[in-house]
């Protein structure tokens, strides 16, 4: 899941850190959904998009939209050579929507932090146990710091 994001660098060595984690992966906890199910604003209000037919991507997009998508739109050529497409409301958008399957999350504890994304995790069988371990760690930290 590592991607390049802007973080304030951690100051504590990673070996002294641990991560309490709740995961609901898309592959196991979500299913595809329609625009109607998610109250998609693009379906409700319509949407605009720009394509550049001078690029391979733009040509592929244009081919799909014109010949396969089945959507209604109005195309306008812009001064910069691109095309603006305005799609009418009431049509399914091009996004892939998902909704939760309402499955219990995975409650994990692993060594390290974002610097060790593949570290081995322990899985708690219940949220209660996960919260208990998390709460105990935080209470102990507070006690240590207050004692000085």
């Amino acid at each position, binding site marked *: 899941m590592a991607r390049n994001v802007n973080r304030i660098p951690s100051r504590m060595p990673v070996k002294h850190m*641990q991560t309490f984690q*709740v*995961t609901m992966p898309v592959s196991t906890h979500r299913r595809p959904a329609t625009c109607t199910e998610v109250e998609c604003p693009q379906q409700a209000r319509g949407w605009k998009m720009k394509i550049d037919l001078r690029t391979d991507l733009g040509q592929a997009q244009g081919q799909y939209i014109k010949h396969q998508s089945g959507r209604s739109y109005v195309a306008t050529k812009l001064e910069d050579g691109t095309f603006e497409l305005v799609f009418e409301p009431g049509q399914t958008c091009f996004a892939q929507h998902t909704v939760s399957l309402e499955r*219990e999350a995975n409650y994990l504890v692993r060594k390290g932090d*974002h610097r060790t994304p593949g570290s081995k995790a322990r899985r708690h069988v219940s*949220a209660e146990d996960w919260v208990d371990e998390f*709460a105990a760690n935080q209470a102990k930290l507070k006690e*240590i710091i207050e004692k000085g």
Partner: protein
Amino acid sequence: MAKINGLALTTLSVDNSAGTPVDVRNDVTNFEFATPRAVQETTGVDKSAMERLLLLADFSITLNGVFNAVTSHLVFRTVSSTSVLRTVSLAHASQTLANECLFTDYSIERGDDGSLTWESPGVLADGTVPTWGP
């Protein structure tokens, strides 16, 4: 405790830029809270590290999710343009963990399968140790 949306965690909310908590559970696929380990199993723990443990609190959070233009996007889209502190609240049964956080990024990425996902990291904005409590 009845589960809401399949989560025994009954609350996972993040303040928007106006300070209003927004329930983002439906959009979140991963939530991480990194914290120092209170019990250091290894012997010979570096003295400077322990001193820092006593003096500083190193905590960070990371949220990952699926793009939702009407919920989580409205919360995190202002991360790059504002420096407001946001309360992140996590609750299970009668226990709540609430932290004032400063988010430092909201990164949206389109996967090879066409999915649109986001990641937003943050750090705790005050010096108190986050604890669970009623």
